[in-house]
């Protein structure tokens, strides 16, 4: 059973935009990170020697370590981007929806 306020929110343009944008952002960020992790996991099953090979000619640090730290850095960057978006895009939309209903 939806009350009047809920019905109003469901058809509210800002609410629909909030849901749409946030859904797209969260899932694409998540799928991106999981793909990186899966790639690392599959490489360690099928091509372990590639992960052990140094990246730079004559260098000593193997690809696996570079990849590991790169995925950590990617996770952190995505966190910062998401929080920025949440503060500057999602939260203002949330406030607009609530104000529109309160009025």
């Amino acid at each position: 059973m939806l009350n009047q306020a809920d019905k109003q929110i469901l058809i509210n343009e800002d609410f629909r935009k909030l849901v749409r944008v946030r859904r797209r952002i969260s899932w694409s960020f998540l799928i991106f990170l999981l793909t990186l992790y899966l790639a690392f996991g599959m490489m360690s099953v099928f091509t372990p020697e590639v992960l052990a090979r140094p990246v730079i000619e004559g260098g000593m640090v193997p690809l696996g370590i570079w990849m590991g730290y790169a995925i950590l850095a990617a996770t952190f960057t995505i966190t910062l981007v998401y929080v920025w978006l949440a503060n500057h895009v999602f939260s203002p939309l949330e406030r607009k929806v609530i104000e529109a209903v309160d009025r």
Partner: protein
Amino acid sequence: MNINAIVMFFLFVGVTLGITVWASKRTRTRSDFYAAGNSIGGMQNGLAIAGDFMSAATFLGVTALVYSTGMDAMLFVIGGTLGWAVILLLVAERLRNLGQYTFSDVVAFRLDRKPVRTMSAVGSLAVAIPYLLAQMVGAGALIQILFGLPYGVAVVLVGVLMTLYVMFGGMLATTWIQTIKAVLLLTGGTIIAFGVMSMMSFSFSDLVVAAVAEHPQGAAIMVPGVIFTDMITIISIGLAFVFGTAGLPHVLMRFFTVPDALQARRSVAYAIGFIGYFQSLIFIIGLGAIVFVTNNPEFLTVEGSLIGGSNMSAVHLSKVIGGDLFLGFISAVAFATILAVVSGLTLSAAAAVSHDIYANVLRHGQNDRDTELKISRITTLVIGLTTMALAILLEGENVAVLALIALAIAASVNFPVMFLSMYWSRFTTRGALAGGYAGLATALILVMLGPTVWVTVFGFDEPVFPYNYPTLFAMLANLVFSFWFSVTDKSQRALAEAELFDSQWIRSEIGPVKEQS
């Protein structure tokens, strides 16, 4: 016996007991006890969340994994951080918007309260109790080595302290203890990693070269596939980290200690920063241990194996870095870590019993609040006594088995049920129950039949189920049962639940809405 370690340990215990006394004066209501009165800020909660995750298993266990297997440990280092991205992107804000004290509140938002709460409380206990035992058995062994106390005495010491913290200080004391410990652990880890790098004249390549030179397996440690060789195992480990973390009841409970969804989001962001930083230190610490501990006669037994096993590699390394004083500091930090994590776990187990089972199932949510608070304190005492007894019986048992069961159950019971109830409108009570119990049963049965229990514990020759980690199969079982028993559910109740979804969806997106007629 290390005098420095003992002095620092007593200092820590003194300070934390002081905090407990202070917190007990501020813990009057249920909200104070379970959620620290929603008074914790984003940054502190982030530290506490990071503290919950940076357990002795991470600090000592993952270092030991780098120390003995090299590159294979990278799977743990990445997975341990990535699980938090799932929490940030899918769960954190919605959890705060929909729940009150435990994640069962969220599952019970539109589903039939009693059976669903019972199921998620059972899930919480099935995660918290083995995890708690894993930490306590590990703690007993660790303290035995560090302080020379007998195993039983060490377990009782940990048990009594954690019971005191939780019973009297509730979530407020638990959060502060966790915060202090997180700062200590981050400091300790930074100093060890800095020490390692400075002895390598700050060249990461030199560290890698030295590790390859010192390790008995040489260049092979940079090739993954020492212990994790097949695809199923790697996928199961990945799933357990990525989705199991978002199903740990003591971690989820922390999202209710902040005032709103904004602070919940900030908490995870800080937590990801701290955890990612710590995980990247762990790999350096592990490589450092290979370089400075492997062939150091000071740390080897007469037979040539490491004193206290590979779990002690980080502790030995601290002695190389900073002598006896720093060894004392790291030992005390390791102990503080265990104490803080078991306190959080105990609180989440107590909340599952008193808030979910007692107050909402047995008393239909009609009980008076003082009784619920009393019940949660009694539960804490019972859990404290039971786990002490069990931990003493389980002396010498493989700690990894218990921790593995816990994370697998978190990923196969709690997470899918919570996730589906948040995101899938046609998820019904029948689906939740079928899925949740199917996930729980599959995880438990497969662990029993797998190599760790069937072969190592029961002593059979061949495991019935060939894989160590059941997560892939148990999670699938949950999802299949949840899906099938939800879509075929044509009852009146199921229709009503689907209708309630929109109103739940609105609240999960924008938080509580003022009720209007």
